[in-house]
């Protein structure tokens, strides 16, 4: 009597909950999603190709524009990758400051994730509170390198300048306040029944699927796999830091929320250790003015807030520019788990799934 027809709709690219210009083609049977196809490429700038025509010094400014909410992590990956390629040893103080800033950037990225994810699902209050703390961190970045988002924080061989006067005091003020702020977010969300109804059991992705799809970062750790580059292949000063890898086994949106909150606590611990044990000394290694490479190829992974961020360089003899540069962007790889997460579930869960993957389109499209 009634015709049964599936409907195809577009979520995005202008949808406010897709965090940029992500378009998701959805095939709907009533409210249930039967097929999901993410369409990307709206923000493509050709960063990998551009970097082939820029020197190793210049290329860093493009890494700011990949994952623009965690630019310092991207800078770290580029700087350490190039240093690995040329065999440059960075002074210990520079390593500590790099670790300090990267962890603060992780906090800023996770705070933005918490704010927007909660806002998508319907919790408005935590958005403003999380942005308040993020604002303070961005001011610290501005004090260190002069910009809030497109930081270009590091240089090949160390840092451009030492920490500005008063930075450590300001960072300590934040440290003292932040745990109370985390407590406030948990008060607002963790036991809230609306939050739990929207997140518990939603967008499940078990450990086998995570590994098969190459998913890394908090999504993998929420499935019970304690894989973290900071522990597995320590870079910067992470080998000297004392921290844990928080994991959960539920593998749903709620578990990922808890994992990220626990990660923020661990980042807080690492920052405190960096501030307490900051060694004295120079911040820049002695490097030649023009770097000329040998025939070589390297891959350097770091733990970005969203997962494994890897830089792959192929260099030629006597070249000042990379012959080929490739970015293994965590958001790009994590996004391919989206169909697996939401096919067969409700349309409203798509928003929660995109939020919990924490994708940034600047990094996906490159």
């Amino acid at each position, binding site marked *: 009597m009634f015709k049964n027809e599936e409907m195809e709709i577009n979520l995005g690219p202008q949808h406010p909950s897709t965090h940029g210009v992500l378009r998701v083609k959805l095939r709907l049977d009533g409210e249930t999603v039967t097929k999901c196809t993410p369409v990307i490429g709206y923000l493509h700038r050709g960063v990998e190709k551009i970097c082939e025509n820029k020197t190793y*010094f*210049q290329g860093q400014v*493009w890494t700011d524009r990949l994952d623009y909410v965690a630019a310092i992590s991207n800078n770290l990956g580029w700087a350490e990758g190039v240093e690995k390629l040329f065999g440059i040893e960075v002074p210990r103080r520079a390593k500590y400051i790099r670790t300090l800033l990267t962890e603060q950037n992780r906090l800023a990225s996770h705070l933005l994730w918490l704010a927007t994810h909660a806002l998508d699902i319907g919790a408005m*209050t935590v958005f403003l509170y999380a942005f308040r703390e993020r604002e*303070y961190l961005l001011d610290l970045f*501005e004090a260190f390198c*002069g910009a809030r988002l497109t930081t270009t924080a590091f240089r090949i061989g160390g840092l451009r300048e030492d920490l500005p006067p008063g930075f450590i005091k300001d960072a300590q003020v934040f440290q003292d306040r932040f745990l109370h702020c985390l407590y406030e977010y948990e008060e607002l969300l963790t*036991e809230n*029944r609306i939050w739990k109804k929207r997140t518990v059991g939603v967008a499940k992705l078990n450990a086998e699927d995570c590994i098969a799809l190459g998913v890394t970062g908090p999504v993998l750790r929420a499935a019970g796999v304690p894989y973290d580059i900071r522990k597995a292949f320590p870079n910067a000063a992470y080998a000297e830091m004392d921290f844990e890898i928080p994991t959960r086994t539920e593998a749903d949106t709620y578990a990922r929320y808890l994992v990220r909150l626990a990660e923020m606590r661990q980042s807080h611990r690492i920052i405190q250790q960096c501030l307490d044990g900051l060694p004295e000394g120079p911040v820049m290694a002695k490097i030649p003015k023009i770097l000329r490479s040998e025939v070589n190829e390297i891959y350097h992974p770091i733990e970005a807030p969203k997962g494994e961020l890897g830089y792959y360089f192929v260099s030629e003899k006597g070249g000042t520019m990379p012959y080929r540069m490739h970015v293994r962007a965590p958001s790009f790889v994590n996004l391919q788990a989206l169909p697996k997460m939401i096919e067969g579930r409700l349309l409203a869960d798509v928003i929660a799934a995109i939020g919990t993957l924490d994708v940034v389109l600047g990094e996906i499209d490159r």
Partner: protein
Amino acid sequence: MSFLRTLIPFDIAAGLTVTGRYFGKVFFSANRKKVRAQIKHFTQEYPEVPVRLQPRFRGRLTLLKDEQGEIKCVCCLACEKICPTEVITIEKGKKEGRKMPYPVRYDFEMERCIFCEFCVESCGFDSIILNHQFELAAYNREDFSLGMDGVAQNMFEPSPVGRHSVAED
């Protein structure tokens, strides 16, 4: 007990306590100047109140002159070479009574500039800086092509700032 929990929304009350605390702070200090002065504000009333910028803030590229009013730039072209987006063009020239080369032309295409400060870093003569200006919007595209000459927009003075406040009318 669990039935009682579903009936009475303790969890929502817990969240409301957090917002209530902040609401109370503002509500009870609304007309009391002494208390209000102690509460630190996180927001700034930007166009009316000038923004506090950090000393290392990266703004617009500016050419510097020394005490005699002479341009400090000696055309070593280091900034032109290091610029990732190639926005600087310098033409070398000579000037009478000056040993060092003199820039006849120093063009700066601000519309492509990404404010990375590599040029300032590469300069060995401290002849350029990035100033603290960030309100760089203009109506015409030509206003973003800065050079050594030009009345309103040039490389030595900060760019003219448009009127931003309704209160000034």
